[in-house]
């Protein structure tokens, strides 16, 4: 069925997001921080609520809304227990990197995290590798987001996958191109609110369709008693819990798309408040949405292969369609679509900054020249647009199982950036050789292990990548000369 009622709320939401982006652009025009700082960092003006919401909306993706709950439908409460590790994401990011990145980036006038890495390690090669890794993994994640959002749109509204992709793909590319980082932060806030609204609406639908919470729990306990156990009858091994703690818990504070937000806030008060508010909202969102996957098992009692197309990604769309009337279904899908576009917009602006600021502008300045502002403005917008269009085109033929693609990119980014950032900010002895080996070697080890399906003790390949990256950082730094003290003054001040 093609449902206008299902389509309308999505269109209204996207129009509001576009209006916000235009408003952000106008507001930016009144600020005097320079185009690059404004477009890629919002002139370090974020207050606590916007900071918390943009971090959560960037972190929470369509995978959190579709793939994760779909897995929870299969596994049970163990998956929700595992998803709970995400409650640490914000306080780790703000607590470990929040102040250091803000201090250093202001001291250096850095606009991107690659600016900070370049200055810390005094290496253009490292900065170039970081920019390339960032763009590649971001593109992978963006494809997963587009695909997830469009699949959901197709399932719920009855319109085609390509039409869904076109509607919100074009909208997100446009409002990111127009609004820059400030526009992304503002629309992320809108998306965060929409995500919460989507969860609440879907929760109402599932509870109503299942005859109430206690009835649903009884149905699950009767049909699948293993879903009530933490190890889910062997479906949730301890090793999976361990690696998920690393992948979506502990090491998420190193994700570059999150770290850049620690350079963008107004003052320390904003950071402190965002940490508490963010932990409240992040927990409600991640635990809430994953729990909906389990509760769906009390409503969708069929067989995955025979009744739901054989993919866990179909569970939440089916739950929306079966438990809500079309107009409410339209509101419910705004949540996952908001999760998708908020992640895409953040990655899009970060990818654009990597190409424009970290590669092109740096190259121009290295030659002793300065690019005219008009050219910078136009190029920034054109590059944002082009990356968006390329990702959009690549998403037209959809890959399967979104959460696996998302996890691959998460692991790659964490491996590449974790020790380079942590050691760069907290270990004076870390140097260029260690950082180059850590980023290059760690990422290579991770990708090879993923490609071959090679695991140690059955653990996810993040354990290989992150360990190799750490060892290479330590060995590489210790066997070569330390960085000159003068170059480290902004990072390890003597006075």
């Amino acid at each position, binding site marked *: 069925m093609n449902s206008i009622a299902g389509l309308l709320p999505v269109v209204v939401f996207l129009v509001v997001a576009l209006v916000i982006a235009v408003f952000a652009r106008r507001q930016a025009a009144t600020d005097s921080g320079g185009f*690059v700082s404004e477009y890629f960092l919002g002139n370090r003006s974020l207050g606590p609520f916007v900071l918390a919401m943009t971090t959560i909306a960037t972190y929470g993706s369509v995978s959190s809304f579709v793939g994760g709950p779909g897995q929870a439908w299969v596994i049970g409460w163990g998956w929700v227990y595992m998803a709970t590790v995400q409650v640490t994401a914000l306080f780790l990011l703000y607590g470990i990197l929040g102040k250091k990145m803000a201090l250093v980036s202001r001291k250096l006038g850095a606009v991107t995290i690659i600016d900070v890495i370049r200055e810390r390690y005094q290496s253009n090669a490292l900065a170039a590798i970081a920019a390339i890794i960032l763009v590649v993994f971001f593109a992978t994640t963006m494809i997963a987001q587009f695909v997830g959002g469009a699949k959901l749109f197709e399932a719920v509204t009855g319109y085609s996958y390509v039409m869904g992709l076109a509607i919100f793909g074009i909208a997100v590319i446009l409002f990111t191109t127009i609004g820059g980082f400030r526009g992304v932060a503002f629309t992320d806030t809108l998306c965060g609110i929409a995500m919460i609204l989507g969860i609440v609406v879907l929760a109402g639908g599932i509870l109503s369709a299942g005859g109430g*919470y206690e009835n649903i729990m009884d149905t699950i306990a009767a049909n699948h008693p293993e879903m009530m156990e933490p190890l889910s009858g062997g479906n949730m091994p301890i090793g999976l819990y361990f690696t998920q703690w690393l992948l979506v818990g502990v090491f998420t504070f190193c994700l570059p798309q999150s770290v850049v937000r620690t350079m963008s806030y107004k003052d320390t008060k904003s950071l402190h408040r965002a940490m508490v508010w963010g932990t409240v909202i992040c927990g409600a969102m991640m635990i809430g949405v994953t729990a909906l996957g389990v509760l769906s098992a009390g409503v969708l009692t069929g067989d995955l292969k025979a009744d739901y197309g054989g993919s866990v990604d179909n569970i939440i769309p089916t739950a929306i369609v079966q438990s809500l009337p079309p107009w409410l279904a339209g509101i419910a899908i705004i949540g996952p679509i908001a999760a998708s576009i908020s992640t895409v917009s953040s990655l899009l602006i970060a990818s654009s900054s990597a190409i424009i600021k970290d590669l092109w502008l740096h190259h121009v300045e290295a030659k002793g020249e300065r690019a005219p502002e008009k050219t910078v403005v136009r190029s920034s917008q054109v590059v944002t647009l082009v990356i968006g269009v390329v990702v959009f085109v690549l998403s037209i033929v959809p890959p399967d199982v979104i959460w696996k693609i998302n996890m691959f990119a998460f692991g790659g980014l964490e491996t590449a950036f974790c020790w380079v950032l942590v050691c760069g900010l907290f270990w004076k002895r870390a140097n260029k050789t260690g950082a180059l080996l850590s980023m290059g070697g760690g990422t290579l080890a991770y990708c090879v292990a993923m490609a071959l399906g090679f695991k140690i003790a059955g653990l996810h390949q993040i354990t290989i990548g992150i360990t190799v990256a750490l060892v290479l950082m330590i060995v590489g730094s210790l066997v070569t000369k330390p960085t000159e003290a003068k170059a480290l003054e902004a990072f390890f001040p003597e006075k």
Partner: protein
Amino acid sequence: MLTYKQKHEQANREAIATVVGLVVTIVVWIVCGFGLAGLDVQVFHTPIWVVGGTVGTWVCAIIVSAVLARRFFVGFELDDEPSASLEGGADE
């Protein structure tokens, strides 16, 4: 007013406190989840380990962030010293 060096020292202390907060959260997650899994107790037809391991851990994380923000973190100016600009493309 803190010097730039003192601000970094404070940020280092805050990072260490945050790691301690992480350890506390992990312990609570294990104790309230796996630790309660052996009990045949239910709250609203939900096993107690589910409530403890999810909502309990979430509440713990909120308390950790509030304690960190109010007791361990210190507010200071981030912009009190002139900075060299790395920002390019300013010429008209």
